[in-house]
């Protein structure tokens, strides 16, 4: 498979590769160490979740959709639940919205710290990886004390939340945030001043604001190029209208900028968590939502740690959804890797990939089958069923 004519070489990264935590296939055409072309192929982790939601009730889908992704599970559940409540014409009480937002910000903290460690590991800086993950344990323990689980928190129910914040918990969270803020300051210092680290991140993968707009980048990847796009500010949801979210921007658009943006977002999250805890509204935790959701369609957008998460929910009056479509932020950001990879060295590829904070499990929703003749078309459910029967006859 290696085409060695004219010293052109195709290096496959994935589907199994130590750089990737999940399967995805990237092909880089290299000339020596310089990358001259790139292509991406996804779909290895397609689990048929969207189809599976159609056979489960609204309540059961809450937990199915939470498991689309392990790192950003709460925002998936929150997007779903906000959409369903809108269709049902119900507003969750303010205390519930505040607790949802609190959990979402805690999740952002854990996700960004996880990303910091993984990106450092891709750069070969294992010490930063170990220390940032050690400190991440603080927020994981907080999440476990607050919600009952470290991953897949399951705080949402249709109409509110399951868990409450008491004073002891509040103190634990605030203390944890103080510790993490101090450590994050140290990591910001490391990431912006360490010369070996900067040699790996400064000037790599530069994406201008125009390119980011054209490729449709979202989240910190876009904000590092100066595109001021954040769903918490553009279309506030849950408790965000009551707190002031400041967008974190950088102009350089390279990897170093993406590091800085995510770490600054950590500071912003600490501030938001403290604000929410200081002004937690009193009240109940849930309102009753009927198990049958009236007919209608709605769109629900939230800001996941990786960018804009988009849910389309269609109800038909029964206790099961008609259609749920999930568009995750990583899908938008993969195009940027392919576009910015050209001209860089092969050693920068894992770093570029890590720079967009890829989440392959979130990604795989739709499958596109490439025909042998080169033409490709979209398959419907009936086509898939027929294909399955004929292949395995």
């Amino acid at each position, binding site marked *: 498979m290696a085409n060695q004519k004219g010293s052109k070489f195709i290096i496959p990264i994935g589907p199994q590769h130590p750089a990737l935590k999940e399967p995805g296939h990237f092909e880089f055409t290299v000339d020596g160490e310089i990358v001259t072309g790139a292509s991406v192929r996804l779909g290895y982790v397609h689990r048929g979740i969207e189809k599976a939601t159609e056979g489960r009730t609204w309540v059961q889908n809450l937990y199915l959709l939470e498991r689309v992704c392990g790192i950003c599970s709460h925002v998936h559940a929150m997007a779903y639940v906000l959409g369903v409540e809108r269709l049902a014409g119900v507003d969750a009480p303010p205390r519930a919205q505040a607790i949802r937002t609190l959990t979402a910000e805690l999740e952002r903290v854990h996700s960004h710290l996880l990303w910091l460690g993984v990106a450092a590991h891709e750069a070969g800086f294992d010490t930063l990886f170990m220390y940032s993950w050690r400190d991440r344990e603080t927020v994981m323990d907080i999440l476990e004390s607050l*919600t*009952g689980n470290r991953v897949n928190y399951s705080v949402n129910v249709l109409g509110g939340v399951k868990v409450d914040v008491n004073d002891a918990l509040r103190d634990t969270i605030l203390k944890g945030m103080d510790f993490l803020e101090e450590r994050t300051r140290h990591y910001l210092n490391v990431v912006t001043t360490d010369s070996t*680290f900067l040699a790996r991140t400064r000037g790599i993968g530069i994406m201008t604001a125009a390119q980011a707009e054209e490729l449709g980048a979202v989240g910190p990847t876009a904000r590092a190029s100066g595109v001021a796009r954040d769903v918490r500010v553009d279309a506030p949801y849950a408790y965000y209208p009551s707190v002031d979210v400041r967008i974190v921007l950088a102009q350089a658009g390279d990897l170093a900028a993406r590091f800085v943006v995510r770490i600054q977002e950590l500071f912003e999250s600490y501030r938001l968590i403290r604000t929410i805890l200081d002004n937690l509204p009193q009240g109940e935790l849930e309102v009753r939502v009927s198990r049958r959701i009236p007919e209608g369609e709605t769109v629900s957008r939230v800001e996941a740690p990786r960018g804009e998460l988009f849910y389309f929910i269609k109800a038909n009056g029964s206790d099961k959804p008609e259609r749920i479509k999930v568009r995750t932020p990583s899908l938008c950001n993969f195009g940027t890797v392919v576009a910015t990879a050209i001209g860089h060295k092969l050693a920068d590829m894992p770093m570029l990939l890590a720079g967009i904070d890829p989440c392959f499990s979130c990604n795989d929703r739709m499958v596109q089958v490439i025909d042998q003749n080169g033409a490709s078309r979209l398959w419907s459910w009936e086509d898939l069923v027929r294909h399955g029967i004929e292949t395995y006859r």
Partner: protein
Amino acid sequence: MKMGTMLGDVIQSLFKPPATERYPFERRAAPERLRGLLRYDPTKCVGCQLCVRDCPSNALELIVVDKAAKRFVLRYHVDRCTFCAQCVVSCRFGCLKMTNEVWELASPDKDQFILYYGNKSDIESVLARPFSRLVDGSAEN
């Protein structure tokens, strides 16, 4: 531009114990809200089966021993349970709760994963039924 910015951390670690938890030789106490094994109290149950219907993974089945006398047995598939606690919320009578003491639930033996909750005599009568050890709910009357 500095070199060795993590030097402070690295030197300090020489004088600190490692951050690793030596599980299973040292176990920390589980947090109070940890969602461990599910527990069921049959005395308050009215047999509405909302918990069964709302479970996202069909881990619960309610076997009716005597509907009028409100005697029920709950069959709980631990291997299907996702520990989401939706059943705990769905039950209006407080029959269900998730303990934080039992959470090491790995077992090489699949039989360990079917639990029956209820009065002792009720469970015995359920288990004495023909084919009652079949899984997948086919033992419902």
